[in-house]
């Protein structure tokens, strides 16, 4: 008699995270011009700001609370960086039109600048700090009050950085040999005019191992006069001493240097990369929450499948002879408890139809996961940010990947924290949907945010689009990415988010069949995504137009591309994923809006017990009738 086998769990990824693979775009070209809309901006510095935010987010234990609720725009204001309106949109670039201080209260601008200096100071201290912390508690290395403490606050740290920067590796922008002019892989000169071809001095070993000696180009920093790191104003006024571009470069370099040469940070990275276990999907360059990749429905379905498999496993095991024997003897208590629980759960399910069954499984999540214990470490519905195993390589800001288009990110801080935030959107799918529903139904509001320490999270946000396909192709071909931009802003506040959500409709609806147009459509589909397209993209960088579109730009509004995605079958997946992202964003809108309002209404008010009570009693009404 063939005993029934337990279904194996090991060959599948049941974790709440999924790897985000570069190979997905191996054969896909992006169709960036199809995303044109009035709110689209080019962000040459976005990759760096994403890096700053990511670093603060993951290594928050070194940073002060004042830095843990920074938003993307705080970096732009604090470092004086401005998005660029892409030229091809057809508007006059009004980039240098208005400066932040023209329309933002000076107090706020200064506060952002101070936070940049606080970040600067913290990074400097991380580099100097020689002690490796034993505990991994939240211990900031610098606070905002210190910024005013001394005239030469940064001097002694900068001294150390200037001494070592050459060995630590200068950023490419600050080297004396510009990378685009010099190929470092080619020798600068060779020692001997002719390769050594002389007779062998030892005829028994007929080989010349070193025919010539080459000298190579060295990466040397700029001369002292033009090297921003040597700028003496840095010592006095901090990061603002440099030009805006150089501020970004210096902060980026400090983060690079910190991750390699700060004992504290390097140790933390070692800790995060050397756990006893590995993720089930192995070590991948990056991974992201499952519910943003597969969507909520697939994630729940995967969980239900897992419940069924675990149930089967337990039942098969309980029928085994030796287990039966042990159970009869009253041993294996945990297993018998599991079987009891399983029986209860099954009894509940018996009277239900399929849909109700699934609903019940999700509702009784806590009971079901008790059965998972010892079978597998986590499940599709657990919190993707909870297990530190996933922390180092997690892309916390990710919200969606669209085939043939690219990735979307919404950078907001405070993914990991030791503070009492209960309104964080960085949580498991069930809790996330719960929070989003609370806000969309109006059950929760700004005050609720305030009471639950919402101020600890980034109040404003930006939705960024990353042209991953182009980036991956450039890297694979070894094309220098310098001067290329892969980051775009799609919206910068709740209002523009609404616009973007409705704009997505144009892309999601399949193209209509039109007799006269059909031919054109076919012509188009044959071109887009072929080599010609790729070539065009390369020649003109990322601002190239789809060849067809240049012929038939909507005369009505050149700033917006309302064309649907091509009709081809392969774009169905893109439409599907766009729809999924649109659903998420429309639910996200309410809580993001509340965060914005929170910033306006409560500013930096610290929620203490007494103020809290008073605020609740005051019951602020902002109805127009009150305004006499």
């Amino acid at each position, binding site marked *: 008699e063939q005993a029934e086998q337990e279904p194996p769990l090991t060959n599948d990824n049941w974790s709440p995270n999924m790897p985000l693979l570069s190979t997905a775009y191996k054969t896909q070209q992006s169709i960036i011009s199809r995303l044109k809309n009035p709110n689209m901006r080019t962000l040459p510095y976005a990759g760096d700001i994403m890096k700053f935010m990511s670093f603060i987010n993951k290594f928050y234990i070194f940073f002060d609370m004042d830095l843990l609720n920074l938003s993307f725009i705080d970096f732009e204001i604090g470092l004086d960086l401005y998005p660029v309106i892409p030229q091809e949109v057809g508007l006059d670039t009004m980039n240098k039109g208005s400066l932040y201080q023209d329309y933002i209260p000076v107090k706020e601008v200064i506060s952002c600048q101070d936070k940049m200096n606080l970040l600067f100071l913290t990074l400097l201290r991380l580099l100097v700090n020689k002690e490796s912390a034993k505990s991994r508690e939240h211990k900031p290395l610098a606070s905002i009050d210190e910024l005013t403490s001394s005239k030469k606050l940064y001097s002694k740290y900068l001294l150390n950085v200037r001494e070592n920067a050459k060995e630590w590796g200068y950023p*490419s922008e600050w080297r004396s040999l510009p990378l685009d002019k010099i190929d470092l892989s080619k020798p600068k000169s060779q020692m001997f005019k002719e390769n050594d071809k002389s007779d062998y001095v030892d005829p028994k070993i007929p080989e010349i191992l070193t025919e010539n000696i080459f000298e190579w180009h060295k990466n040397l920093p700029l001369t002292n006069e033009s090297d921003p790191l040597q700028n003496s104003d840095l010592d006095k006024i901090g990061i603002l001493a440099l030009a805006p571009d150089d501020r970004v470069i210096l902060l980026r370099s400090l983060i690079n240097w910190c991750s390699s040469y700060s004992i504290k940070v390097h140790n933390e990275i070692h800790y995060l990369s050397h756990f006893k276990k590995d993720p089930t999907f192995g070590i991948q360059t990056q991974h992201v929450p499952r519910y943003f990749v597969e969507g909520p429905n697939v994630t729940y379905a995967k969980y239900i499948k897992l419940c069924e498999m675990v149930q089967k496993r337990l039942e098969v095991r309980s029928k085994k002879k030796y287990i039966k024997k042990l159970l009869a003897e009253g041993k294996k208590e945990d297993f018998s408890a599991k079987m009891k629980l399983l029986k209860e759960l099954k009894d509940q399910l018996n009277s239900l139809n399929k849909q109700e069954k699934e609903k019940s499984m999700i509702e009784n999540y806590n009971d079901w996961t008790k059965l998972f214990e010892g079978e597998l470490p986590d499940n599709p519905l657990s919190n993707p940010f909870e297990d530190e195993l996933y922390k180092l390589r997690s892309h916390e800001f990710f919200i969606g990947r669209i085939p043939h288009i690219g990735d979307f990110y919404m950078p907001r801080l405070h993914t990991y924290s030791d503070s009492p935030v209960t309104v964080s959107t960085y949580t498991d799918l069930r809790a996330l949907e719960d929070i989003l529903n609370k806000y969309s139904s109006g059950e929760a509001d700004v005050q609720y945010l305030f009471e639950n320490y919402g101020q600890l999270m980034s109040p404003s946000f930006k939705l960024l689009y990353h042209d991953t396909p182009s980036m991956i192709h450039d*890297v694979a071909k070894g094309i220098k990415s310098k001067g290329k931009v892969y980051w775009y802003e799609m919206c910068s506040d709740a209002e523009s988010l609404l616009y973007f959500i409705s704009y997505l409709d144009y892309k999601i609806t399949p193209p209509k069949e039109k007799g006269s147009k059909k031919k054109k459509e076919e012509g188009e589909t044959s071109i887009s995504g072929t080599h010609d397209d790729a070539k065009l993209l390369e020649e003109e960088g990322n601002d190239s137009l789809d060849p067809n579109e240049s012929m038939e730009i909507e005369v009505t509004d050149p700033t917006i591309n309302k064309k649907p995605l091509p009709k081809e079958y392969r774009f169905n997946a893109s439409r599907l994923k766009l729809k999924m992202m649109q659903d998420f964003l429309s639910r996200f809108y309410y809580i993001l809006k509340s965060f914005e309002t929170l910033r306006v209404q409560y500013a930096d008010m610290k929620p203490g017990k007494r103020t809290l009570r008073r605020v609740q009693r005051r019951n602020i009404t902002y109805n127009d009738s009150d305004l006499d």
Partner: protein
Amino acid sequence: IISTSWINPSKRERKENYNIDGYYKDVLQTGRSTTPAQPRMPKPHAFHSHQLLPTQLKVIYEKERMWTAKKTGYVPSMDDVKITYGEIEDETEKQQKLQLLKISIENAQPLTEEEEKLKVELEAEGFSNWGKNEFRKFVSSSGKYGRNSIQAIAMDLAPGKTLEEVRKYAQAFWSNIERIEDYEKILKMIENEEEKIRRVKMQQEALRRLISKCSNPLFDLVLKYPPSSNNKRTYSEEEDRFILIMLFKYGLDRDDVYELIRDEIRDCPLFELDFYFQSRTPAELARRGNTLLQCVEKEFNSGVELNDETKKRMEEEDSTGKRIREEIKNEAAEESAKQE
């Protein structure tokens, strides 16, 4: 600003009162007459094995030495026995001493003219102008560049020795290596170093072939023998592929290759937010690089070696083929000449 090379001047010496005797001391050479110097046993002539002097010279030098001793009327003592014959514990010591005496006394002859001539000839055969330090440098450079890379070795010995001098010495060195003191040790060292160079060359070749097999190495480079699975994996496979591609780009024979790879990782937008990869120092990257190269090497080990052998065979076949062709041509020419 005081430069770091500043050295405090010594204290000014104050004038003492003139002492007439002291003043004229050196000029007049008054004072006691010098005692006649004790005759001394001349030291044995330094004979460095690396100078590759013929052993006959040793005999001549010894003769010379004894003659000098005799000239000064020196009576050898126990110490000289030690110098000449090393430590001897037992009673034969006295006999040794006597022998020594006898020899030096009997050595009434200075070198004959023939011997003098021979001495000059023999000395010309060796390399008495190669000092210990130059020899050491020669040995270490031979390892560093490989024994036949004369241009490179000569560069290291540059101001002291010309390329030709180095070449001549190297030829003599390799044909007479057994005559050199500790030659096994020296040879072992050079061979080990050469092996390292060969290994790098081979890894370079293996890497070249591995990468040329892929149309898009960033995606489809696969190691047949990936790094051992019992070690903790910390790099993703994509990161490993990137390291290999960069090693190929810059070549393995540069000492700054891992600094360059570190910079490439920082500049690569694919790893913008990859803090693990970004945090690797050149030393850490080098460790990973070596692990990966060993895997690449394993994959191509049989292939590369086989290739070298076949290459040789093919060359031989080519040359014999050529020769045969030449012969046929010549024969044909002769035939036609005959016919004419």
